[in-house]
Structure formats: C-alpha cells, structure tokens
C-alpha cells in the first residue's frame, strides 16, 4: 500500500511528534484506514447518478425507438392456434407474462413466464376490436401469405386481406391477386388525385362561400342590434343577405356538381378483398332421437358487420373433443362440411352423416342434425372457417401494400411516405391516424405569438431591473418575486388566463364594457384626463430642462412627473373599461351565444404562456446584461454617449446572444406546456387552422390544436387506446424533437455568439 509507505518515514520523524492532539497519544497516528476512503459510500452516491442517467436514457430510448418504428411496414402473418383459430394480422408487440392457471389469453395449461403477442387484425367493422392477444405456446402454425395486403382506409382503420377482384363500372375485370394488384396500382393514384381535388372543393371553395354567407348574416344581426328592425340599415343588410344567399346557392350547386362528377368517376373503381377467419367454438350434442342428434353452437363473434363483408363461404369441422390424445394420425373428423355462402351446409367428409345443417351469420348460430353421432353429452370441438369478401371503393383506401412482398427499398418508401403524411396532413379517425399538421401549425403559431409578446416585455423588465432601478430592498424583493414566479405551477397561469383573458377581457372585446359609465361622468373623466395629461406633459418639460441638476427640487419634480403619468394611465384605463360609446367589436356573435374572443383562443393562449415564460426571459436577459463588462459602458459614457445611447449601441448588441437564448428557452418551455392550454384554448379537434390564406391570415380568436394536448387527447381520451399508442409515440417523438432542437439551438447560439463577442472585452 503505497500510501502507507509514504507515511512511514513521517511517523519516525521526531519533529512531527508534538503536533496537535496527535501528540497526546502516539497510537492515533495511524495509516488512513481503507474505510476512510468510503469506497462503498462513493459507489452508493455514484449509483444515484447512474440511476438518474439510466432513467433518462431509457426514457429517450423508449420514445425514440417506439416513435421511429411506428411507421415501418411489418409483415403480415397467418397464425394457426391450438384451438383451431386462424388469425391474419401484424404482430404489434410482444410481452412476457406470468401466466396463471385459467388465463384466457395465454396458452392453456402453460404456466410461468409466457410470451404473448398483440396481433393487429384490423377489419374493425368485422371483429369489433382491431387487436387481439395470442399466447405464443398456443401458436401451432405460422406462415406469411404472399398476397396479404395491408390497406389503410379513411374510416374503420386498416383492412387486412387478400385481393380477390377488381371491379370497373360494376364489372369484375380481374380475380388473380397479381392482376388485381397491378390494376390497383394503375388506378389508385388517379383516384387519390381526384379525392384530393374533391376535398379541396369541399373545404376551400365551399368554405369560402359559407364564410361570405355567414358574414352577411352577422351584418344583418349587427344592423338589427344597432338600428332596430325597421331601420333602413337593417333593410339594406337584409337585401344584401338575400343577394348573398342567392349567389351562394348557385355557387354551392356548381361546387356540388363538380364534386358529384369526381365522385362518379371515383365510384367506378372498386377493390375486392377476401379475408378468412377461423373461429373455434364450444359445441355439444343435444340428444334428440336414438340415432339422430342435434348440435347447436354459437359463433364466437356474432354481430360482425355482415352488410359490408359478404360471406362467400366457409367450412365447418366437428371433432370428438378427446380424440387428440391418441397419436395414430388424424382420425377422420365427425363431420366436415362446406358452407355455400347462403347458410346451407354441404357435407364433404366425416364419419357421421349430415342430415340437415344451417349457419345463421346474423344471429351467430350454427345448427346441425347428424345421423350416426355419439350419444348426447359428448363434448365436441367445432371450428368454423368463414370466408368473407368486401368491395371497397378505391378512394376509401389511403395506402395499400402487399406487406410480405416488399423489398427494403419499398419498405423505406412506405416509411418515408407515412412520415410525409404524418407531418403534412390533418388527422383522421378521431385523431388516431393520419397526420398532425394542425397541431404542428397550432403549436408553432401559438409559440411565435407568445415570443412576440414576451420578448419585448421581458427585455424591458430586465433592462429596468439591471440598468435603471437603483438597488434596494424593493428591487431585491422584486427580483425574488420574479425568480419565484418561475416556480409557480403552470396550471395557476392557466386559471388566470381563463378567468382574466377569456372571460373578462374577452367579454369586453366582444360586447363592450359590462357596466358602462353614464355619458356625463365619462365626459368629465375625459376632461380630467386631458387636464392630467397636460399637467404631466408640462411637468415632463420642466423636468427635461432641469435634468442635469441633482437637487432635491429636481428629484421632487421627477416624482411628481412620474405620479402624474401614473394617474394619466389610471384614468385612461378607467375611461376605456367604462366607455359608454363602445359596444364591443362582435356584439352580433355575442348576442347569438357564439362568442369570438369570450372563449379560449390562440391569442389568449399565447398571452397566458407569455406570462408563464416571462421569468425565463427576464432572468436570461438579466444575466446577459450583467455579463456585459462595466468597462465598455464606462468607455461609452467617456465618449459622451447618453445612457440610452450606451444601452442601444453598446449593451444591447453584446447582450443579444443572452436575449436570444432566453427567447429560445422560453419557446422550448412554452411549446411543452399543456396544462394551462387545456383551459385557454387547446381543443382536441379544430376544424380550421389559426392561420389561413384568407382575409386576416392570422385568426387570433380560433381555438387550436397543440402537440402536447394532442398527446394527452389521443393517449387518454380515445376509445381505442391500443390503436392510438403508435400515434402517441410518434407525436411524442416529434414534440421532444422540436424541444430538443430549440434547446440545442439555444446552446449553440450562446456558445457561438459568446465567442464572437469574447474579444469585445477590454
């Protein structure tokens, strides 16, 4: 032990003996014990850091892996289970469970750690739930059919099946899968283009007509409110409304005609797909006569949508339940029969004779009469493989691909196309599919608006605190308050935003002051304002002239000037909020119970978040101002610059990187906040974006969608949470990505600009 040897000569050194307390007892001069290094404790502390790092890495990895993998096309498997079920689907994910006896979803009889897979079976209208758990030990056969296709539809989620036909103008032109697929690929792009065109007609053109009509109607309401029913203004507005309605009717008819034409064209093409499901079901022989037996069984999933999925056939198999114990090959089943698609059963094999048999798909029942079956009470396994077919108009399909035939390049193509859709299209299917363009636009609009508000005020406040305010208990209290407000829960700001902006200010904007003053008091107030403002201006002028003097009189004058201006502001505020002449900007909408600003909207949301992020900007700007060296300010003053000139020309440019950093940090914080937005304007589904190509371009009053709120909504409010999960992961990835980019930008900006100005110090 090197440390110990180092100490040895010291111990023998007599000069070191009379030292402090050690001299009292020479035995205390020990080598430092191993326990003094506290290695175990250091490890324990290090463990804390390790756990923290591990947590963050695991979380980021989870989101990145899940989010990035969502859009990768995966093969479609056909699984055969021990029960005789055949399931066509995509393995969404797997997990290990502790199977307890009687777990339905795990394999029968299997205990201990068992893998089970979540299979996306799609075809929601058929089975009710698009996902299904299958225990791995339960799977007996697995194959990947060549022509299994995965089709994303506009409604009802994905469809899985085998292409079985292509119909043009009601005529089946192909049935072989490869031919059908070729035809599909030939016609689908054109159909999609027409669907897009129709969508544009519906949304943009039709929306514009509706807007103009609504505008005219509101003008009528406004005229009635202002001038009454029998005024000429009202009559004029009425005439105008009639005119607009007339125009709208013809315009609507035109648009309708175009849409119908497109629809007719699209309706021509239809894809036919087959799907087959095998359903195992419990059955029992019900005794009837001595040699004829009746068997009744329920189909396990009655109530599938047989209107859209036509049953084209099926096969039924009955076996004595306990015959799988002997391993002398497969004995002939009790009965094998084919369903002709109209509910009648025709025997194909079997030891017993089918007397009569019928399948009622609507009621979900099978009833059979057999000759030569065993006695009543014998358990029988029955499995029914139903084959169903569906015709689907091509414009219902967003994208389809034969999942098991894709090359790597094809897969990459699908992957990229899905990301494109995700980033540039609006959502469909209750937000669980499609894209997130509206939330992206909403988030960006809201954040930029917030920035526009928060940066000037934050910089003003920081300039005041750092450059103008003299130190003292008040300023340090204010500084504590500002730092402190950074820790006030965001939901509190949401409550404030809702109560103050949406309800009080919003109401004022919409329908004017709630309790306007009388005309006379208001005019008196106006006169007072004029007087006070005049006095304040005069005081300012005097103050200007005595500016250089630091006499007590000059200081007093300064206070008087400040006080007068404050009174001016107060009186102005009073005059505004009690104004008897102002009836609001949108009285018509307010009167109809359809408020414009008296509800959550993008303006109120950004103002609320501006308050929330104000401390961030103030603190960052203050730091930046403090970092500008004093020598530069003094140099500027020495050259004869005034204070404001110094700030504008010397201080602010040098502090710019800090201010930019503060702004970007505020954006990152604002973009990630959800709780206050839930109160002040974020909605789950917004029909219109807050920015548009028409008149005001920026619609401050509109509710908006927000990425964070989108995550909350899709993950928690959607009925099919399993199906929504991939969407949540990708949205999360996007949000985290945006915030990470903003943070990194702040980081790099800070370092780059700092380097640029580093030589500015002297």
């Amino acid at each position: 032990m090197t440390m110990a040897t180092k100490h040895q000569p010291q111990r023998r050194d007599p000069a070191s003996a009379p030292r402090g307390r050690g001299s009292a007892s020479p035995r205390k001069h020990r080598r430092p014990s191993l326990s003094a290094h506290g290695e175990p404790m250091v490890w324990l502390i290090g463990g804390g850091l390790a756990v923290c790092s591990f947590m963050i890495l695991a979380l980021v990895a989870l989101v990145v892996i899940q989010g990035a993998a969502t859009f990768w096309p995966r093969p479609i498997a056909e699984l055969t289970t021990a029960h005789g079920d055949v399931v066509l689907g995509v393995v969404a994910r797997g997990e290990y469970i502790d199977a307890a006896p009687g777990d339905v979803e795990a394999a029968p009889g299997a205990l201990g750690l068992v893998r089970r897979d979540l299979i996306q079976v799609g075809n929601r209208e058929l089975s009710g739930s698009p996902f299904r758990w299958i225990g791995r030990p339960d799977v007996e056969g697995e194959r990947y059919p060549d022509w299994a296709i995965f089709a994303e539809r506009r409604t009802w989620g994905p469809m899985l099946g085998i292409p079985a036909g292509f119909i043009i103008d009601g005529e089946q032109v192909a049935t072989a899968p490869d031919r059908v697929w070729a035809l599909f690929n030939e016609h689908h792009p054109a159909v999609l283009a027409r669907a897009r065109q129709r969508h544009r007609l519906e949304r943009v053109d039709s929306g514009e007509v509706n807007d103009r009509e609504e505008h005219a109607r509101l003008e009528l309401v406004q005229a009635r409110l202002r001038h009454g029913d029998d005024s000429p203004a009202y009559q004029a507005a009425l005439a105008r409304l009639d005119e607009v309605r007339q125009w709208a009717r013809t315009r609507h008819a035109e648009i309708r005609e175009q849409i119908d034409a497109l629809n007719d064209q699209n309706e021509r093409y239809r894809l036919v797909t087959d799907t087959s499901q095998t359903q195992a079901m419990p059955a029992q022989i019900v005794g009837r006569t001595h040699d004829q037996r009746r068997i009744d069984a329920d189909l396990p999933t009655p109530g599938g949508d047989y209107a859209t999925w036509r049953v084209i056939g099926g096969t039924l198999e009955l076996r004595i339940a306990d015959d799988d114990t002997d391993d002398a090959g497969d004995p002939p089943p009790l009965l094998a029969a084919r369903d002709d698609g109209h509910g009648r059963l025709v025997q194909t094999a079997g030891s017993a004779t089918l007397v009569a048999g019928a399948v009622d798909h609507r009621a979900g029942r099978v009833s059979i009469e057999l000759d030569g079956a065993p006695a009543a009470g014998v358990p029988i396994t029955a499995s029914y493989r139903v084959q169903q077919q569906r015709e689907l108009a091509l414009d219902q399909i967003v994208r389809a691909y034969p999942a098991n035939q894709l090359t790597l390049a094809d897969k990459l193509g699908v992957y990229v196309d899905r990301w494109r859709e995700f980033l540039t299209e609006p959502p469909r299917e209750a937000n669980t599919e499609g894209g997130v363009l509206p939330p992206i636009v909403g988030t960006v609009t809201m954040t930029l608006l917030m920035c526009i508000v928060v940066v000037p005020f934050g910089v003003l406040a920081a300039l005041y605190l750092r450059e103008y305010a003299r130190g003292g208990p008040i300023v340090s209290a204010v500084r504590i308050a500002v730092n402190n407000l950074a820790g006030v829960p965001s939901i509190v700001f949401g409550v404030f935003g809702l109560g103050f902006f949406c309800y009080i200010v919003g109401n004022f904007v919409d329908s004017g002051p709630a309790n306007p003053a009388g005309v006379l008091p208001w005019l008196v107030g106006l006169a007072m304002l004029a007087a006070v403002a005049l006095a304040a201006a005069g005081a300012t002028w005097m103050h200007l002239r005595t500016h250089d003097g630091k006499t007590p009189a000059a200081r007093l004058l300064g206070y008087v000037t400040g006080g007068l201006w404050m009174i001016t502001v107060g009186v102005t505020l009073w005059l505004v909020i009690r104004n008897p002449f102002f009836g609001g900007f949108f009285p018509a909408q307010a009167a109809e119970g359809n408020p414009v600003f008296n509800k959550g909207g993008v303006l109120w949301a950004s103002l609320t978040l501006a308050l929330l992020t104000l401390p961030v900007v103030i603190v960052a700007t203050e730091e930046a101002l403090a970092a500008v060296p004093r020598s530069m300010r003094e140099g500027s003053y020495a050259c004869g610059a005034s204070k404001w000139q110094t700030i504008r020309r010397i201080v602010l440019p040098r502090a710019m990187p800090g201010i930019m950093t503060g702004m970007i940090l505020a954006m990152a914080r604002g973009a990630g906040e959800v709780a206050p937005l839930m109160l002040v304007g974020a909605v789950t589904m917004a029909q219109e974006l807050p920015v548009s190509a028409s008149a005001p371009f920026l619609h401050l009053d509109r509710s908006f969608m927000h990425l964070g709120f989108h995550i909350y909504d899709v993950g928690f409010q959607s009925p099919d949470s399993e199906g929504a999960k991939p969407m949540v992961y990708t949205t999360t990835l996007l949000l985290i990505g945006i915030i990470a980019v903003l943070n990194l930008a702040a980081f790099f900006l800070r370092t780059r600009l700092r380097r640029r100005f580093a030589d500015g110090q002297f």
Partner: protein
Amino acid sequence: MSQQPPTLTGRQRRRRTTLRVKVGDIVARSLITVGGIGTILAVLGVCLFLVWEAAPLFFAGEAREQASYARPWRDAADARPLHLAVDDHRNLAWTVMPDGKLHVFLLATGETIDQRDLFPDRELTAASFGEGGGDAVFGFANGQVQRADITFETSFISRADIPAAYHDMSVDEVRAYREGAVVLTPRDQFRYRAVKIALDEPADLDEPSPIRHLSHTTRRTGPIMVSYTDDGRLLLSEMRRRRNLMTGQVRVELSDCDLPFTLPADRGAPDYIQMVGLGDNIFVIWDDGHLLRYDLRDRDNPRVVEAIDLVPEPGETLTAAGFMLGRHSLVTGDSLGRTRVWFRIPAREAQRIEAAGVVDALDAVDQAPEGGFEADGMRMVNAHELPGPASGAAVTSLGRSLRSRMLSVGYSDGTVRLYHVTADNLVLETRARTGDAIDQVTMTPRDDGIVAATAAGLHNWRMQPGHPAVTLQSVLQPVWYEDYTRPLHMWQSSAAADDFEPKFGLVPLIFGTLKATLYSMMFGLPLALLAAVYTSEFLHRKTRARIKPVIEMMASLPSVVLGFVAALVIAPIVARFVPAMLLAFIALPMTYLTCAYLWQLMPYRWHVVLSPWRFTCILAVTPLALVVAFLGGRGVEQLLFSGDTRSWLAGHVGTGAPGWFLLLLPVCAVVVALAFALWINPALRMVGEHWSRSRFALLEIAKFALGIAATVALAGLAGLILAGYPWLWFDAATVPWSLDPRGEFTVAGIDLSPIGGYAQRNALVVGFVMGFAIIPIIYTIAEDALSAVPDHLRSASLGAGATPWQTAIRLIVPTAMSGLFSASMIGLGRAAGETMIVLMAAGNTPVLEMNIFNGFRTLSANIAVELPEAAVGTTHYRMLFLAALVLFGLTFVVNTLAEVVRLRFRKRAFQL
C-alpha cells in the same frame, strides 16, 4: 483666435448635448421604467386576480327589503297563513288561510288579484303542502281529505292580444292582468302568469272524525299520507287517483291502515306530525320536545322504533318543525331560538360518534316501545345546531330552500335569519321593521328572495346569498353532509342525483398534493442530491461535461410526455411486477455496495489504474441489479406475499408481518449502520491497523455481510412482533396487539397506513415519474451550489490528508448545505404544482389515504379537470380559483424560502 484649439476634422465640436439625444434618453428611461415596472406588476397581478375571484366566496349574503305592505287578506287578521308560495320570477304569491281561503296577490305591491274560498261547504282543519306548495292535501272536520294541485302557469301573450293600456309597460314591470300578473320581458314579450288550481274529488276516511293533523309525501307509486283524527287515532292512508275516462274527473280512493301504537294518553294530542320524503318514517312530535318515530317500511307492521327528547332543557318548548329539501332531515326550532337539524343514521355509527364527542348523546325517553328502541337500527342525531338571535326570541317559522340546503328561520321578535345548514353558516339576518313575530317565512324558488308574513303585514326581501355553502370552516374542516354518518372531508363538485349537494372540502385535494409531493420527493430527492454530490466531487471533469447536459435535458421534457409514459407504459409494468419493483429499491443499493466491497479487494495498483473507470462500472452494474430484481421478484412474492401480491395488499391473504418487514427495513439498515459506525468500525480499525489492504477488504466484506444479516434479522423480528405472531408469546391468548400495515390507521379522517389495496394508477408510479420532472431541477441547482464551494477549501482539506470522501462529506456538503436545501425546496415547489403527470397517472379520486398503491387527486389536476366545465361566477368556479390560490400560496412560500436561503448561501459563498 489662435486660442481656439484646432479640431481634427475641422468641424466645430458641439459641447452641448442635443435636445434629440436628451429627449431620447428621457423617453427611453420612462418607457423602460414604466414597461419594466408594469411587466413586474402584471406578473404579480396574477396573484391579485386569483384573490379577487376567490374572495367573494367568503363575503356575507345581502338582503334588501323591496316592499312591505299590510297583509292582502284583511278578513282574517289574526290567523296565521297555512302556506305562502311565490313563483320563480317573484311576481306572484299565494297563501292559504286556515279558513280555507286562497289569496293571490302581486308580490311587489300586495295588490290582490284573486281571492276565493276553496272549500265553501266544509270546515278546513288540517293541511299538508308538498315541495314548493304545488301538491297539497287538505283535511276537514267531516273526516274527508282532498288533494289539490296549486301551480303557477306561464303563457306568453302577443302585443296584439293585450289591451292597449298595457302597451306602455316598461321592461320588468309587473301589472295585474285578468287573474294573474303580466310582465314585459327584455325580449319584448308579455309573460302572463296565473295560479292554477286543480282540486281532486274529496275522499272519506273509513271512520269519519275531524282531522287534526295531516302530513303527506308523494312517492313514485303515489301520494301517501298520515293523519291524526280528533278521536286520537293515527291513520296511514295511501291515495290512489283514478281518472274517469268519460268525465275526466279524478276520483281519489284511500286505503287506510290504523297505526297500532296508541299515543301516550298523558301527553294529549301531538303538535306536529311529519312524514319523511320516502314515506318510510313518521315523526310524531309534542311541543315539549318529545318525538316518536314510526318505521313504516313494513307496511303491514308499522311500529315505533325510537323515542327521544328534542328539547332537553325543562320548561322549554318546541315551537316549529319541518324538513330540509328532500324531506330527509328533520328541522326543529325551540323557544330558546335554537334551530336544530336531525339526521337519521345507523345506530352503531351514532354510538361511535357519541363516544367520540362529535354529537351530544340523547337520552332515550322513559317508555320503551315493544321490540325496544332503534329496532330499525337507525337513530336520530342532532347533526347541526344553529343559534338564534342574541335576544333569545323563539323560532316561529321555518322555510326551506327549494334548490339548496338553505333554511330561512323566522323568530318571534321579527328577525329573519338565513342559514346554510350543511356549512353551519349564518348567511344573512334581517328584520321586519314592525318587530312582530314572523308568522310564515318562505324562500323564493330561485333562492333570490325571502317573503315573511307577520300579523301586521308582509315583508319582501330581495337577497343575494352569495356563496352560502362555503365558509373557511367548511373548506378546511370536516363537514356533516346529509346522508352521511359523520362529518367528513369531501370534494365532490358534480352531481349524480337531482337533490345533490356539492361538497367543497379542499382538504382531500391539499392532501393529494402533499401526498404526490411526499412520494416523489422520497424518490427523487435522494437520487438528485447523491447524483449532484458525485458529479461535483468524484466525476472526472470531461465526464461531467457530458453527463450534466444529459440530466439537464430531462428538465425540458414536456410533462405531458412524462404523464403519458407514466400512465400507459410504466403503470402497467409496475402493476405486473410489483414485487420486482419493490425488490429493485433494495437490489440497486445492495448491488452497488456489494460491488464496492469487491472493488476494494483489488490490489492498489489496479485500483489506481481503474479508478477513472469507476463510474463506467457503476453504470454497468445498474442493469445487472435490475435483472436481479426482476428475476427475484417471483421468489419474493412467494416468500413474503403468499404468492399473490395483489391479494396480499388487499388484505385477503397472509399477515401484516412482511409489510412491517419491508417498511422497517430502511429504518433497521440505518440503525445497524449507525451501530456499526459507533462501535464496530473503531474496533475494526484498531484490529486491522497493520493489515494489508486486501486482508482488510476481506474483513470489510465480512462486516458488510454481518450488517445485512443483522438488518434483515432486526426488521424481521420487529415485523413479527408488530404483527403479533402468537408463538412469540408464551401463551397465545396474551398477544397484546396485532397490527397490520395494510389496515386502517385513521387520524383526523386520514388513513395513514402506507400500504393497502392496489390501484393501477397510484402514488408509486407518480412518485417514480415525477422523479423525471424534479431530479433535473434539484440536480442542477445542487450541483451549482456544490461547485460554487471554492476550490481552495478542497485543496486545503486534501492537503491536510483527508480522503476525497472525507472532504466531500465533512467539508463540501456542509458548506453547500443551504444551497442543497434551496434546491430541494425548488424541487418540492415543482412537484406540488405539477399537473399533467398526476392528471394522467394518479387516478384522480379524492381519497384521504396515504397508501402508496392507491391514487389521489391534487389541486392542480382537479383544476385542470373541472375548470373548463365550471360556469363563470358560480361557487364551483370560485372554489377552483381558491384551489389555484392555495396552490399559488403553497409554491410561493416554498419558493420564497428557497430563494432567501439561496441568496444567503450565495453571499456566504462569496465571503469564503
């Protein structure tokens, strides 16, 4: 001329500042000052606005007398009206007098509109009025009863159909028109309102005798009534209404049934008979306070089940009796001016709360009915007592609100008080100017007015009760709500039923907030502080530069992402592997310690070479620990939790001992570590003084193993003793206690037991995920504080021969302590205010349980859930503002404390 110094540019230099610069400077200064101060004020204005919105909750109600006039029914000056009803726009009112006359008059002026004798040929002797007066039953001297519907009917009249005399009416003016009143509404309509009376055919009681008292209620199957006749019989009758299809006449049939229990002869006729809303109980009351309660649930065998004294003071009398809204709770007023509200609760609960002193025990009255008292298992308790005016005037009339738990009480000195019963809140008090006794007091249907009749006249107050259901006490203390067996802390703001009473107790929400904070701090705080100490003291500079931004990156993770991960990813995993999760909390530190002791075994040369890789090793063994925990989870479950953790937690299987064992394990570990540090370590050091490093390391390993064994043994023993294992005592019968941590330890209404039944969204998950939110904040600030300790202190300590560990723990950490404290406080503030994580992962049930496996509801999540639905200005809306204010105050206090301590620390750090 030559004196003039030459200028460089040849231009004359200006020596005076131009006005432009001066003005610019002043304007900039004023703008910045105004803008700066304004901005700061605006931020502070948030707080003021919250106060402004929440304060009206605690303002008292207001009543303004609108009119008072002589009574409109001049013919019967001394008679007390039987009933007084007002329509919901406060335009019309009607009374029924004891002589059977109905008067309809304008409420604003007292102008009589309609007056008729309802029963010209019969003598009215008793009457009973339903909720709002609408359906009434009258009893007569000839033994007949008659049902009537007296309702207000509204219709709208067009301007063309109304006489021209009414065209000049102003908006909201009320005028008599035909047999009712007409009002011009702001929408330019004439609203006509009149009293409509529909009398059924009278029906006979089976043995006609004058009816003295009558009380009825309407159930789903039809009206049921109880009557007391002059010959001393108590009769129960069901009324069946049959409509004659030809004539449209409604005939009423009575199915009578004598109540068998004869009233005590010495008491004479009872003074009040009241039937409970569901028709299952009857109260028979004498004015000395004696009450008999009949149970009617078995219609064939009605019986007396309780007899109590409502006015225990001798000589005092009962002066009024009635019901609250819904006819569940009995209200009585006595001659001392007290108003009492009586709840029927299960007898066992009543005994418990009497023992606890929540209510006064009531003496059962002398004579016990057959079958004993409380034969239905229920008992009357005095749940609320409302004091009268200081003058001690007797209660003369009670009027209940038709939409809330408010009660108007009239006194003999003309005082009228308005109480909110549940909140025990005196909302307002007013007085009839004449000072006559209040004969009849009633509240208007919209709770916006009180009308009182005295012998002299009629008084009509317009009132704004404000927010009567909320007082400081009702918000923070247990409140006894109707249909509950004792005072409780409750938050339940939205209705499930029609006569629902919103419950605004903030305590469950504040408790939820504190619970979330506690559990997340228990998880996050040690981790963050340990990580900070390691980063600043033991990590290589280059590694630090990489690790620190990674952890700080956690701070910018949106909390909605954390909430989503908590609820949809972590909660199901935790639910599936509860024992493994618990084991991980033990396995992680154990793995680190074990590895450290093994690390010490290495020769010193290796140690020197490998020490830069220490953190890498720590990182590498972390997954190992997790795997160990995962694999061991099943074993732990078998060993401790009888093989099924969920059932064990719910208390279905196993004993409490494993629970105690786990809870006490950390405590025992600390105790053992302390004991080792005090007694074993010095001895070891002495023994191993001259030992080689590796030999000493072996000794240390032995010590570590011993320590683990001692901890487990200690915790196990303590668990067995606490859980009361019989074989620990000589005689199984003498086990003095048997405590189960899964059970209830209720203190002040809060269940303090830390474990219990499992809910998927629980405090464990929230605590874990909240760690992601608070760790980076605490970590950053704590790390800054530790790094701010000047390096010369470190150098001095190391130079004096202290090891880095000793330097860190004895010098650096104590110096930076206030910085660490402030970091913890700021983390605490963040945890308390976090919304999205708790909203998504805490289950949001406002329960008062410390159980880590159960959910909770925090102030913030509550606001996020309920505020969008709350109507502006309602009590609910303002309560949510109050909740926001409480949250604001909570974090403000914590943050200010942190900021003050931080500033002090900074000053001290500069001085060092």
